[in-house]
């Protein structure tokens, strides 16, 4: 075989300061647009848009769509589409609502708010979502029915199964422990949130240092130390800033008073307690981390991107692309059910129209976040940022008092504009679209 001569490593002196930071230009553009959007709305609403209260609500409202958008990235990267996510969310929510309000308390006799109820309900809900996803994936992968058709059918089928099961009724109130996962009713408090924030910073910095050490050990080109330091500083500020914002939103004193009364204590005069990190946001963060690791560091993720880039090449490399399709749709179904947990817990009930039009929001979030419909390209963090941009746009316009039809016109136009902009950017890079 060939000799073990390594490549000479080209010098980096020609690159400018900005390039040495190796930041994702596209991500920067998206963050820039988001910042401009926020400042604009903040001016129009006399400072209400960037108030801790609104940012807290915005975060909670984004979670459900953002969780599903991470799965949609995989689906779209594989050159498929899933129009059924809102329907799968609805049927999972319906089943979970029935399990925790009818089946377990009454038929099994566990009673209301039993400590096991929420776990059993969620386990059943997640299994149903995963099974539906896997079934749709089987139709696409093994039966070669186009994903557009399978999930268009699913769009009609699954939501209406939910309707059938619940006879169209609103089911609630949901289990007390279940509601904690929705947002306002389940937050970590200030001290715990700071702890989580500091741990998160420590882990991110450690990951960056060890990755840098790995590159240097192998003799690969690495960023200069100062660039690495700047990126680390940005990451630290972002994480701690996020925690600070969520901690600054204080629990209203009336509500606080009631909480103390419930425990039979008296609230101290002038006490201020922040909400801190909502548990639903922690679920989103955990999902994002897991999905990013899957995308970048596992064979499954590598095969998903390879298949999206060139399905024939993936086949010829011995990758079972049919089974891969089933897995990707099963992941999507699982995430729909996870979103159903967060969404129904936030609304405190299961309603018939839960998740209506979510399929379009989720696809829009993934696409605004830079996922290419042609397949092979997309990032998890991009999709989450896309979901955040969409939600900010919508709630910002509502706060400003834009008429409902105009809101939809703007959102639709922004979607098309964002994709157009992305195509122009890629053209300038000379990449194929």
């Amino acid at each position: 075989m060939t000799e073990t001569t390594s490549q000479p490593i080209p010098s980096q002196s020609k690159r400018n300061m900005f390039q040495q930071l190796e930041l994702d230009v596209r991500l920067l553009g998206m963050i820039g647009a988001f910042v401009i959007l926020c400042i604009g709305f903040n001016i129009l609403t006399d400072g209400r848009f960037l108030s801790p209260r609104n940012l807290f609500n915005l975060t909670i409202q984004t979670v459900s769509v953002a969780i599903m958008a991470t799965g949609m990235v995989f689906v779209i990267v594989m050159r498929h589409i899933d129009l059924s996510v809102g329907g799968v969310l609805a049927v999972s929510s319906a089943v979970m609502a029935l399990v925790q309000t009818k089946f377990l308390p009454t038929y099994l006799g566990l009673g209301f708010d039993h400590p096991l109820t929420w776990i059993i309900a969620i386990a059943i809900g997640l299994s149903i979502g995963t099974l539906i996803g896997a079934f749709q994936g089987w139709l696409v992968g093994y039966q070669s029915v186009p994903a557009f058709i399978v999930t268009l059918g699913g769009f009609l089928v699954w939501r209406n199964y939910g309707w059938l099961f619940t006879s169209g009724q609103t089911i609630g109130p949901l289990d007390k422990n279940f509601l904690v996962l929705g947002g306002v009713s389940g937050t970590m408090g200030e001290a715990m949130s700071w702890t989580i924030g500091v741990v998160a910073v420590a882990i991110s910095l450690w990951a960056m240092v060890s990755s840098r050490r790995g590159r240097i050990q192998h003799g690969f080109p690495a960023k200069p130390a100062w660039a690495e330091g700047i990126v680390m500083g940005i990451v630290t500020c972002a994480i701690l800033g996020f925690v600070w914002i969520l901690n600054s939103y204080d629990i209203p004193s009336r509500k606080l008073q009631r909480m103390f009364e419930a425990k039979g204590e008296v609230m101290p005069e002038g006490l201020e307690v922040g909400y801190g990190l909502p548990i639903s946001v922690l679920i989103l963060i955990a999902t994002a981390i897991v999905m990013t690791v899957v995308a970048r560091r596992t064979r499954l993720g590598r095969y998903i991107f390879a298949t999206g880039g060139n399905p024939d090449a993936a086949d010829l490399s011995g990758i079972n692309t049919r089974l891969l399709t089933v897995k990707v749709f099963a992941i999507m179904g699982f995430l729909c059910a996870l979103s159903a947990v967060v969404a129904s817990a936030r609304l405190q009930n299961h309603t018939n129209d839960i998740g209506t039009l979510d399929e379009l929001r989720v696809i829009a979030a993934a696409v605004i976040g830079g996922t290419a419909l042609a397949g092979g390209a997309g990032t998890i963090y991009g999709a989450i940022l896309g979901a955040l941009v969409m939600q900010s746009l919508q709630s910002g316009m509502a706060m400003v008092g834009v008429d409902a039809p105009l809101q939809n016109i703007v959102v639709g136009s922004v979607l098309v504009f964002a994709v157009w902009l992305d195509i122009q950017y890629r053209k300038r890079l000379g990449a194929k679209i």
Partner: protein
Amino acid sequence: MTASEVKTAQQRRIDGDTPLVELKDICVSFGGIHAVDHVSVDLHPGEVVGLLGHNGAGKSTLIKVLSGAYQMDSGEIRINGNKAEIHNPRDARSYNVETIYQTLALADNLDAASNLFLGRELITPVGLVDDAAMEAECRKIMGGLNPNFSKFAEPVSALSGGQRQSVAIARAVYFNAKILIMDEPTAALGPQETQMVAELIQKLKAQGIGIFLIDHDVHAVMELCDRASVMKNGQLVGTVNIDEVTDDDLLSMIILGKVPKQAVA
């Protein structure tokens, strides 16, 4: 290894040694069309056998049976004399059959190392993909194969035709191939890179690897191959020793389907 100890491929054939690969009586049809019609070819270690024929003659289809991309309807594949079951590309790889496809079969959105190891990633003890180790291996092998190669971080869509070809070749050679299939390896290459492929073939031959070379170009086959099998309309016209025929003999086999009488191998 000295030349005196190693039998040439020709000597092995004369001695009646077991061939490295035997494709026996292979039939493949697509909806009533016999793309490959009772074709038999064989290949010895250290030998290059050219497969010639017009477009649609069935040479690519025949070879895709060996690489696992297509299923045969009837026939038998023997490797080192034992019957081989090849139903998909993964099976083929387990027999050390590696293929360089005409289309290169690269995932354009991934970098060179990811393509090199696609389907056979190196993993860390916890089961995650070990990109650093793969990039290190990739730099090593590309250093020997194509010293000008430097774009390790970019997706292969950013590479030139020759560089993409070297990634595809590296992928086939890296994993201890015993049997190598090259489907028009020089079709997209300039003269310099074609020369590189020719040198590589000589090097692989010396290591005892058997190579099937599919090509349109009679001159390339005359230069690189030991034997040539010519196909026409799904059937085998004949197999000849290259040093016993002329360019014109091969051309008349391809065009007219006639075998020169003096040169049946």
